């Protein structure tokens, strides 16, 4: 009886507690495993997108800003514990300290924007931002180029376009841009030499927001209001991003059509009954203010033949098309047959081109260019065997 009692006592005081203790431990372990599994799933579910924005607000006096946008694309609340700004080239944190150490909560589906340019003061190189979450995940941005503490891709987010209309051929035009305050622009000056009268150009400059004074100089001198049709002042003031272009319209340069010099290049003598060719060349004086398109038909129609030639054998091929100022070009190459002579005496052919009022047309002005006249005589010799 006593033995049974002792056996029962041993059972209830040792084995049962041992079993209960084991069971408790196992439950504890099981709970820990579950907790760890939940934590791992939560960690794996975390998803944070990091974007870098460069904004330039010089007019507000806030200077250049670089902001980090944290977008929580997971269904969980994410607490960003720290943000590091890493120097990608050196593989080290910029400043050897975290950029932001204050915890930031980002709700599911929301995003938050943080100013981070204070971490990049005077930094030049490739920077990458790494956000460390409370659950121990690291999320990195794509590396971006920073120049002097400013985001390179956002250095000049705007474009200022400067147009100059009716430039004078041969003159040098300089556009000077003076940024006001914190505004910046690149390049700040461009010089262009006009190659034709009344030429137009449009140039674009990368700029930040802000106010700029745009100067236009002609041969190194500021163009006065008398020469400008628009704008009313030189320099012109423009403020980006409200206005993004400046158009300087200069008074149009008057073009006086120059007389085109016509010359007939023909052989001095030909044999009777033979075919020969001659060229008609045109020369445009260098004073001409524009290119001239040759009027072949008018020139061909102005050719007059007389003497010993076979009628109906003249035909011409147009060659050159455009005359630039100061150039000479063959406008027509013509063929003609000399007639058979009736005796042993030599004959002659006279080719004449009369003065024209429209030998060519100005490409820019559309004006008709006149030409002078020319004439040449060709001796026609009899065949020897006759």
């Amino acid at each position, binding site marked *: 009886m006593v033995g049974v009692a002792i056996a029962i*006592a*041993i059972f209830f005081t040792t084995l049962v507690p041992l079993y209960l203790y084991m069971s408790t431990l196992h439950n504890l372990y099981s709970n820990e495993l579950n907790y*760890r599994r939940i934590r791992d799933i939560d960690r794996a579910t975390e998803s944070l997108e990091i974007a870098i924005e460069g904004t330039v607000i010089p007019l507000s006096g806030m200077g250049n800003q670089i902001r980090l946008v944290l977008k929580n694309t997971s269904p969980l609340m994410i607490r960003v514990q720290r943000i590091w700004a890493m120097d990608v080239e050196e593989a080290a944190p910029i400043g050897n300290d975290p950029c932001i150490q204050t915890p930031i909560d980002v709700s599911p589906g929301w995003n938050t924007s943080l100013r981070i340019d204070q971490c990049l003061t005077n930094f030049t190189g490739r920077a990458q931002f790494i956000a460390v979450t409370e659950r121990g995940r690291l999320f990195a941005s794509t590396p971006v180029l920073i120049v002097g503490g400013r985001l390179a891709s956002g250095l000049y987010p705007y474009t200022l376009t400067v147009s100059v209309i009716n430039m004078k051929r041969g003159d040098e035009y300089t556009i000077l841009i003076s940024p006001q305050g914190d505004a910046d622009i690149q390049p700040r000056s461009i010089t262009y030499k006009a190659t034709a009268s009344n030429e137009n150009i449009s140039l674009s400059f990368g700029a930040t927001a802000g106010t700029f004074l745009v100067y236009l100089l002609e041969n190194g001198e500021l163009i006065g209001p008398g020469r400008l049709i628009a704008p009313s002042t030189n320099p012109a003031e423009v403020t980006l991003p409200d206005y993004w272009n400046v158009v300087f319209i200069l008074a149009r340069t008057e073009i006086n059509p120059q007389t085109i010099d016509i010359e007939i290049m023909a052989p001095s003598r030909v044999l009777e009954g033979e075919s020969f060719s001659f060229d008609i060349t045109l020369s445009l004086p260098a004073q001409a203010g524009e290119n001239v398109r040759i009027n072949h038909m008018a020139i061909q129609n102005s050719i007059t033949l007389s003497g010993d030639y076979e009628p109906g054998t003249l035909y011409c091929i147009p060659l050159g098309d455009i005359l630039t100022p100061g150039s000479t070009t063959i406008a027509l190459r013509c063929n003609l047959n000399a007639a058979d002579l009736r005796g042993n005496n030599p004959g002659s052919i006279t080719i004449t081109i009369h003065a024209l009022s429209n030998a060519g047309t100005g490409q820019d002005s559309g004006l008709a260019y006149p030409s002078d006249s020319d004439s040449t005589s060709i001796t026609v010799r009899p065949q020897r065997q006759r």
Partner: protein
Amino acid sequence: MNATISPPPKGRRPRTSRGDTILLAEILLFAGVVTLGVALWALSLGYVSSQGTQMSREYDRMISQHRILLVIEAASLQSNIVWVSNPGMNDVIVLSCTIYPKTQPSPGIRYNIEPTVVAASPERLETIQGCERYPGEPPYIVELWYMPAHLYNRTDPARNVMSAQVARYEAR
């Protein structure tokens, strides 16, 4: 021959030692059973207690390994400094820190730094200095071996290895 048995005298029984012997035997038996039972009980308690302690230690080791987590947040290859935090639930101790080219195999636990305790708190940032650097071309792997701080035994490196876990970080 008839044997006559005389009746006992009236009013007084003759005293014998037979009852004493039985009682003594019963007492001795009872004492023996009780002694044996107590001894068995004590033995059982000792065994259970020992088993309980052993189980506690084993479960503690297993649970601790699930509760620890070390994160390498940043590393400076210029100064061989590694910034770590511990978002887990147990303090950890860092045993080894190596920086080696990604193209090379892991050198494993090197016990190359003074063991550093990192408290369990995501807010706290600790620095690990003096990491062993292996030559080679980037990118590099920063590798830390760590274990639950309360399981660390300075005199038993082999046992420490059994509880150690690794954290890695790629530095370009």
